[in-house]
């Protein structure tokens, strides 16, 4: 499973939406995620990939793709994939 697929699964599980509707262009608003959904997703991703996502970085995420790209870069820097 790729990083993107794993994050998509987490976001879909937390927001209770069909994973197929989450594209890299989707915003959290598009998938009707509220602030608690977003924080739960951040915490779950942090735990899964053993990384810490600072708030100032998380606030820059405009879309699901931004979130995935950030995590991918952190994971590859840490040599976890």
């Amino acid at each position: 499973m790729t990083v993107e697929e794993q994050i998509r699964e987490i976001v879909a599980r937390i927001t209770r939406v069909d994973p197929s509707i989450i594209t890299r262009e989707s915003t959290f608003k598009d998938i009707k995620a509220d602030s608690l959904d977003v924080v739960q997703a951040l915490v779950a991703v942090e735990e899964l990939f053993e990384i810490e996502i600072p708030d100032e970085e998380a606030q820059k995420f405009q879309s699901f793709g931004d979130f995935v790209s950030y995590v991918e870069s952190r994971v590859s820097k840490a040599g976890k994939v």
Partner: protein
Amino acid sequence: MGGDYAPEETVKGAVLAAQQGDVEIFLVGSANILENHLARHATARNASIHITPATDFIAENESPVAAIRYRPDCSVAVAAKMVKSGEADAFVSAGNSAAASVSAIQYIGMVDGIYRPSIVGALGSFAPNTVMVDLGANVDCKPHQYLDFAIVGSVYAKQFLGIAEPTISLLSTGVEESKGSEAVREAHSLLKKSGLNFIGNIEGNQGLSGKANVIVCDGFVGNVLLKFYESIGGHALGWTQRKLKKYPFAGFFAKLLFNRLFQATRISDETEKGGGGILWGVDGVVRIAHGASRAPHIANAIESAMNAVRARTTDSLKSELEKYSQGGKA
């Protein structure tokens, strides 16, 4: 440890609960403060009260999200983790209720199939066979949450009111399915297709009619309505006494009527009975107490958490959801 009168009243309430029932209590918070307060209530039952240190707490005005993002050692988070690990059967909080709810979601987890915790309450005197959900845990709701509320309310009505097949209604501004907000209209369509015993929309003036055993609404509407409902008895008594001012004896009878015979001024006690104040849908028992709780209220909240543990509310919800996912009526 939170609450408007914590730690004094909260510790006193825990001591009271320990004196009244067979319960082991863990006070979670600053160890020094709790030890000092507990020492003021030296009784034989204090042996069943322990202190679990928590180095941090979430204040009433703080973001509840802090409990899971930055403050994993705050008291509500520590208490939730104790339930998850099995060290405790339930946790009771009179502090920041949103923080308690968020901690429960994050550290205990939700029952599979339920999105967010909700609060259910029986309406008591005026509508003895009716419960309402949500009473304030979810101010903004997505349509699928109304379905969760219907299932949770249905379990409550079966378990605490003994109704075999509860009728479910959606609170709206009209009985037609086209009435209400966008979320309510979508919820109507989901409930209609759900296989639940859904009898359609209900308006506010029919809420106490007994037609619906479970009234489903978002937490904003539920909380406003509940507080208004709980205040009716007191206002009716005040109004009657003012009208009867010229006749002092009649005023006394009004008080007798409202406070004793019909107990209309005690509706709030009734809504808190049974599974009231429990965060339904969490995979463990979490009881939210009013922020302004005094010792007897804390003791009641502990007792109600114990009742929920004994009644195995979480297991009942899981088995109801199981039936529902298999296409049967919940």
